[in-house]
């Protein structure tokens, strides 16, 4: 297997009782590649993401990440391996400020011999937060503000900045702009472009056709738990209408004939 592949899944399958939410997904992501996952509600997009990030345990199949077969027991394992995920529920602590949230669970500390009572290195965390925000192009007026005083877009930016700051090997965003206004969406899209320039791999789950065509290299379409198309939108002439017909089932990719 060539080592420019960051993530590969083979026959990835998830059943919830009798519901076949995901069936035999074969998926490949190269290093530095940005791929969008599209599909109707209940097509298996989020289920797919939850299996890779270790939030749930797959029914069968293999996941190969960065050349090694992996079996994450939880999202933490995935994060330690280098997969950063921005979930729809943002997983931010409302009463804490931006550096606190960015470094939650991986604080910079001093006097480590004090165990759980080791001291926080606020100065270093603030500095790295500002560096990280500059790197990703996130604009937050006041990083000392607590999350509860921020707009939805700012919250989203903090969540994305958290994923992007920590030199992850793969970033996964599950509908990052679903609840955002025009300007806020533009900001999130800028962050994604910055990630692309920096050569970081990304999986973007999105419903927004324009956004997908603007941002990513490739679109993978899910339908009724199966992958039904793999579209190289940068090199082939594929229109939004084509993608829609794959999503709705009017068309199925040649190599996926026989799938749902």
């Amino acid at each position: 297997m060539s080592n420019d592949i960051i993530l590969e899944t083979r026959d990835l399958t998830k059943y919830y009782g009798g519901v076949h939410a995901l069936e035999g997904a074969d998926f490949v992501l190269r290093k530095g590649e940005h791929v969008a996952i599209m599909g109707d509600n209940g097509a298996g997009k989020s289920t797919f993401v939850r299996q890779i990030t270790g939030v749930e345990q797959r029914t069968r199949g293999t996941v190969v990440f960065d050349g090694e077969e992996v079996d994450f027991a939880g999202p933490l394992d995935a994060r330690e391996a280098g997969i950063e995920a921005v979930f729809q529920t943002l997983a931010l602590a409302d009463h804490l400020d931006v550096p606190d949230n960015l470094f939650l669970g991986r604080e910079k500390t001093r006097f480590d011999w004090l165990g759980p009572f080791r001291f926080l290195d606020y100065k270093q965390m603030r500095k790295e937060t500002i560096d990280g925000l500059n790197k990703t192009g996130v604009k937050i007026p006041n990083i000392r503000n607590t999350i509860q005083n921020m707009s939805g877009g700012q919250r989203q930016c903090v969540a994305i900045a958290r994923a992007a700051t920590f030199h992850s090997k793969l970033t996964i965003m599950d509908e990052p702009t679903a609840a955002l206004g025009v300007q806020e969406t533009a900001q999130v899209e800028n962050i994604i472009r910055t990630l692309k320039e920096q050569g970081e791999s990304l999986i973007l789950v999105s419903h927004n056709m324009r956004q997908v065509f603007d941002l990513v290299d490739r679109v993978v379409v899910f339908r009724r738990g199966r992958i039904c198309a793999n579209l190289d939108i940068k090199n082939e002439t594929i229109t939004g209408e084509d993608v829609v017909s794959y999503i709705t089932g009017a068309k199925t990719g040649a190599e996926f004939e026989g799938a749902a």
Partner: protein
Amino acid sequence: MTDTSEGTGGLKFDKSKRRWPNEINIFLALILIIVIFEVLGQALPYMRGQSFLFDTNDRFDTIFNEARLKIIILQVAIIGIIALGVTQVIISGGIDLSSGPLVAATAMIAMSFAQTELVNGNPNPKAVFGLWAMDLPVIVPVIVGLAFGAMIGAINGTFIAVFRIPPFIATLGMFLICRGIALWWTAGRPVSFPTEGFKFIGSDMMPVVWFLLLAVLFHIILRYTVYGKHTYAIGSNEDAARMSGINVRRHKILVYTIASTLAAFAGIVLSAKSATAQAGMGEFYELFAIAMAVIGGISLQGGRGSIIGTVLGAMVLGVIRSGFTYIKLDGSYQLMAMGGIIIAAVLLDQWRQKSGTKA
């Protein structure tokens, strides 16, 4: 703490948007309450122009009414020690109802290892154990008491964090269990006549010294350590904390253990101060401790509150209790008035929170 002024994206840190710290409001309320009592003392006909704060007797060594101040902070100190622990529990999104009875149980247990062999040349009439437990070094009852508290706290924490019993229920159960232990330990008889060393722990102003030392210690811990940050994070968004890799179970057990150890210490100080331990001690202490934290601006939903707030809340409660006695308000009215004040404090705080988020 320095504030960063280098906001990103060319935007500057806006100092005017900094929030007015809640603690200052409580401090102002404290001063207001003192002024009210001072005025009442001058105005009420039956008070004959006494002063709440200032010494009007012909004494020249101090302008303040030292005796009253002593009473206020002594009243506050022991329950205040409990409140320091309760504050951490509430910030983490929980509640601890077991601290009052734990004070009694710890007082009984610690005191029985702190007795003297001879009282006025006669054998100790309240002896719990044989001669082996007489005149032990003071460290023994302290360690035994704190270990008992830590054990109770660890049990609380385990039931809450591992078996997912709501904190209210788990600590309500422990409330009854501890009161039972306090009664069972000597079948209801009081335990008395401690060693001089043990008495020293609660002598004179020592309770206040303990309270202030512990308040400073836990202020630093909550504000500047990983333990503190994780406590706030868990209370603010437990799922986020878990997703961020915080061991939420272990942390909660630690929080309840620390809280109960503090309550146990309060029991040791109380029994040392009274030179006796009784199963009925510490009645309502858990509620007053919670009230102190609540007046101090804590949120029962978790994630918000501070040790400074709780210390100020304790002072407010102490001043109110002492002030009511000073204006000779009957005990029954005192309870009613204090209840009203606690509810008013929460109402004010909620209103402030709402207007704060809009601004």
